[in-house]
């Protein structure tokens, strides 16, 4: 029996190549799309999952209150880790850590490599596996360093024992390799290539032992029996107990939430990437739904052709159940073929998709989970898509269909129309979303930042760059490739240093306001293209400015009426405001400009900014800069980044949403059009006799095309009406996440509607014209 069904299914497929193609291709696109999304979702969900103690490991961030609002920071005071471990019974391991980039050099191999200074507990918290050496002895030597296998191989080549080797770091410090650990998976929130004892970094930095300095990334492990809520409550209370201040609360952030749920608003967890994961899961399901709808539509549209078979089979003694079973098996076979096609498509598209989303996903068909998943999709799609046609087709009464009566299409017609409206509604929503996401992205990128991100290169300060700053600057400008050079202690796009408890003239409750500090060289403002709106800039001789500061407009506003020039700011030492700088954006590009205070001091700068000459080609500029840097800072490799690239990188997740929504809008429309195309063909065929009669009676081709297209356009029109409020609701919600956002314009809806109508018209009219041009003699003769 089953063999019989399969045989029939394949013969039906072959006989109706066009329909089969539309059916299989539509479903294959849907499955491909959903698979790509689910691969991405799987990757997102797998972050940090390879560490052993999933239920015990926590990161310790702090909520800090400023001006009545809680902000969340990834830092804790130095002594806090030890205090938690000794005073809170449930916490068994705790480690301070500090991230650093090292320059490792072995012979000619020099690599820049990120890692952490950590306490010995770190090894157990993350259950790091030693390939060489062992966990117990690794940190006994204060000059120890433990590197990953990958780093060891990069430095010494493969299959080399490296235990006991001495590593020179940043061309000055010596470290002894006391262990090699297995490589960490790629999808971790805190990647490390090496770890070294924390004290090696903290050394005699007194401030690292004070509760006033928040700087460390702290990790803890709870005992397996510990009650999370009880421990978390104690952690939240501990800072106040130590400092007496109630405006800082550390808390526990589970390893399972690091990647997906890391956004906090006013002290509450409010999601994070999990929102995108959810969004795209829903989109994947919707696309599958559209593809299944297509399948149903095309299957029921072909019912006329199958009706006879149903009648005969029933007359031959088939019960309804058997027919339902037959049609569902046919749908399953089609779904299975579609899955095979989609595997092929996946192989072809995955590299492109990886490029698009900047990941390294692999298809991994051999993975049982993936196998089960694909089969699951096939089954669900097959059954879901086959169910309605099966019930519909099997309901035909043999007497009617065998007599050649027209199958009464009443309900099926409505359902079919409903499905088309559904598909187009989704497509139009996608189109609108795509336009709005794009607009919002452009809106934010074109925002006046208060500085000029173009032609701006950023270098990390290392080696002798500060000591030789003056000559480096001179030589750079002499090349003609660079017009201005400035130093800054924090990245121009980053949040960086900040603090409160300042007082100033003209302000009230000033202690609560969070002020951002920037230590810059005198020409940084010019380099970054920031504008001084009042007063003067810094003197070249920084000693002359030791008590002077520049502030931004938003800070000046906090100082009350009148000019801010000459007003005093007390931050332990007292500074005089000598100039006001136009507000500029950093950290959160959607937010407001926070108040900033500039000091003329570049002794501890971390970044060097170069304004390049737009008249010289980029590669030329870079080689000229590199030559200068090689000359003055030869020990370090020349590494640079463009500020506008870094700026764009800040919109990664939005860009991802943007790119993917474009892709999905396109696919949704494509699938919907396949369905519409099939339906139009069916209608044209169904009405061929009517068309023949009309032509004989003198109807024009245009008239008939209009007759056939009109009904479909009505459906698309209805879809537009339904889609607009839906899209508006969804996008208004999405835009609500951004402080700096566009307003939704009515013309977006007009464009989306017009696009849908044009696409539908092209799809339908192809069939309509074909039907209208047909010779009426042929269609009338057949009866």
């Amino acid at each position, binding site marked *: *029996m089953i063999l*019989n069904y399969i*045989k*029939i299914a394949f*013969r*039906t497929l072959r*006989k109706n190549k066009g329909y089969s193609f539309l059916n299989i291709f539509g479903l294959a696109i849907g499955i491909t799309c959903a698979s790509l999304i689910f691969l991405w979702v799987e990757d997102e969900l797998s972050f940090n999952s390879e560490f052993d103690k999933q239920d015990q490991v926590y990161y310790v961030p702090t909520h800090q209150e400023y001006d009545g609002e809680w902000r969340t920071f990834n830092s804790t005071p130095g002594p806090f880790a030890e205090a938690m471990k000794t005073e809170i019974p449930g916490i068994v391991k705790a480690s301070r850590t500090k991230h650093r980039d090292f320059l490792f050099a072995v012979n000619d191999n020099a690599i820049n490599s990120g890692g952490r200074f950590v306490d010995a507990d770190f090894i157990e918290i993350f259950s790091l596996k030693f390939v060489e050496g062992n966990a117990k002895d690794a940190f006994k030597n204060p000059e120890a360093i433990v590197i990953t296998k990958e780093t060891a191989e990069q430095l010494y080549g493969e299959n080399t024992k490296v235990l006991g080797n001495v590593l020179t770091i940043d061309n000055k410090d010596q470290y002894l390799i006391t262990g090699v650990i297995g490589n960490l998976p790629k999808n971790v929130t805190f990647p490390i290539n090496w770890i070294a004892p924390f004290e090696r970094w903290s050394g005699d930095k007194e401030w690292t032992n004070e509760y006033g300095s928040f700087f460390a990334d702290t990790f803890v492990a709870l005992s397996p029996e510990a009650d999370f809520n009880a421990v978390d409550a104690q952690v939240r209370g501990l800072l106040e107990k130590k400092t007496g201040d109630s405006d800082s609360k550390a808390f526990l952030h589970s390893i399972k939430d690091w990647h997906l749920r890391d956004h906090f608003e006013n002290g509450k967890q409010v999601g994070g990437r999990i929102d995108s994961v959810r969004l795209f899961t829903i989109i994947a399901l919707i696309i599958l739904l559209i593809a299944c709808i297509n399948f149903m539509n095309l299957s029921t549209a072909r019912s006329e052709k199958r009706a*006879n*078979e149903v*009648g*005969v*089979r*029933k*007359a*031959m*003694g*088939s*019960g309804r159940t*058997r027919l339902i079973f037959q049609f569902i098996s046919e749908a399953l076979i089609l779904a299975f073929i579609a899955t095979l096609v989609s595997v092929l498509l996946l192989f072809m598209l995955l590299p492109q998709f990886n490029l698009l989303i900047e990941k390294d996903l692999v298809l991994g068909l051999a993975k049982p989970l993936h196998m089960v998943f694909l089969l699951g999709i096939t089954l669900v799609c097959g059954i879901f898509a086959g169910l309605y046609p099966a019930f519909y087709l099997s309901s035909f*009464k*043999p*007497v009617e269909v*065998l*007599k*050649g009566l027209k199958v009464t299409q009443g309900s099926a017609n409505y359902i079919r129309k409903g499905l088309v409206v559904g598909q187009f509604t989704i497509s139009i929503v996608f189109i609108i979303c795509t336009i709005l996401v794009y607009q919002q992205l452009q809106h934010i990128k074109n925002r006046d930042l208060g500085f000029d991100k173009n032609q701006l290169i950023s270098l990390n300060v290392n080696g002798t760059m500060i000591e030789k700053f003056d000559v480096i600057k001179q030589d750079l400008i002499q090349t003609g490739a660079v017009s201005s050079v400035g130093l800054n202690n924090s990245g121009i796009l980053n949040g960086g240093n900040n603090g409160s408890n300042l007082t100033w003239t003209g302000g009230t409750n000033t202690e609560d306001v969070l002020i951002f500090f920037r230590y810059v060289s005198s020409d940084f403002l010019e380099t970054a293209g920031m504008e001084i709106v009042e007063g003067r800039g810094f003197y070249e001789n920084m000693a002359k400015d030791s008590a002077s500061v520049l502030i931004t407009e938003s800070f000046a506003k906090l100082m009350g009426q009148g000019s801010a020039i000459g007003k005093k700011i007390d931050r332990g030492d007292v500074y005089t405001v000598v100039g006001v700088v136009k507000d500029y954006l950093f950290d959160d590009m959607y937010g407001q400009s926070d108040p900033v205070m500039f000091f003329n001091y570049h002794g501890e700068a971390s970044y060097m900014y170069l304004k390049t000459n737009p008249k010289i080609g980029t590669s030329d500029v870079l080689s000229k800069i590199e030559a200068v840097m090689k000359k003055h800072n030869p020990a370090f490799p020349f590494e640079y980044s463009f500020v506008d690239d870094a700026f764009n990188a800040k919109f990664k997740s939005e860009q991802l949403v943007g790119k993917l929504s474009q892709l999905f809008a396109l696919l949704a429309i494509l699938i919907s059009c396949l369905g519409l195309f099939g339906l139009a063909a069916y209608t044209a065929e169904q009405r061929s006799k009517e068309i023949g009669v009309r032509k004989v009676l003198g109807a024009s081709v245009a008239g008939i095309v209009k007759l056939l297209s009109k009904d479909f356009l009505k459906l698309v029109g209805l879809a537009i009406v339904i889609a607009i409020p839906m899209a508006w609701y969804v996008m208004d919600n999405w835009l609500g996440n951004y402080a700096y956002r566009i307003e939704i314009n009515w013309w977006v809806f007009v464009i989306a509607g017009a696009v849908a109508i044009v696409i539908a018209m092209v799809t339908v009219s192809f069939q309509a014209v074909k039907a209208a041009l047909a010779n009426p003699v042929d269609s009338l003769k057949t009866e």
Partner: protein
Amino acid sequence: MKNTLLSLNEATRTVNSGSNKVTLLDNINLNVEVGEFISLMGPSGSGKSTLLNCIGMLDHFTDGGYTFLGEPVHSMKEKNRSKLYKEYIGFVFQAYHLIDELTVYENIETPLLYKSVKSSERKAMVADMLDRFNIVGKKDLFPIQLSGGQQQLVGIARALIGKPKLILADEPTGNLNSKQSEEIMELFAQLNKEGVTIIQATHSESNAAYGSRIINLLDGKIV
């Protein structure tokens, strides 16, 4: 000795057409004995097809009694009814109604699948049938590759494969030329001789003459 195959007792079939109640079959009384060859005659719309369909249980009477092999069909559940006609009734249609996607062999085999006959048994039965109708050479062809007469031959083979007691044929030669018609009617006569009861609906006097009894219908009544 005569054996009653089926009997109709004031069987009536009405349909609602809009607000009108239309009577298609009006108080039909009919006894069919095993081994009869009945020809139903009458103009278009007289109710021949409806009567065949009702007897064949594809349709049902709205009133009156219908007894088949002593069992009251009118009060039967759908499931039992379907069992009954699967077992005892074969259909032959004017438009042949072969399944286009199946070969001759598979078309003939289909009723057996629904009767859950074992594979080996099926093979033997179909081979037998092909042999008997002299269409062994055509068993792998699809209906579209056959002439009308040949298609109807397959249709009859399919109707016979389940060894039915009754064959219902609705204008079996309506789409055939006179030579093909004659062959088909000869075949029916032959089958009837072999013991199969046949009821055919026909317009043609000459075809009707093959039957052992002619029943004339007009406006849903036997005249």
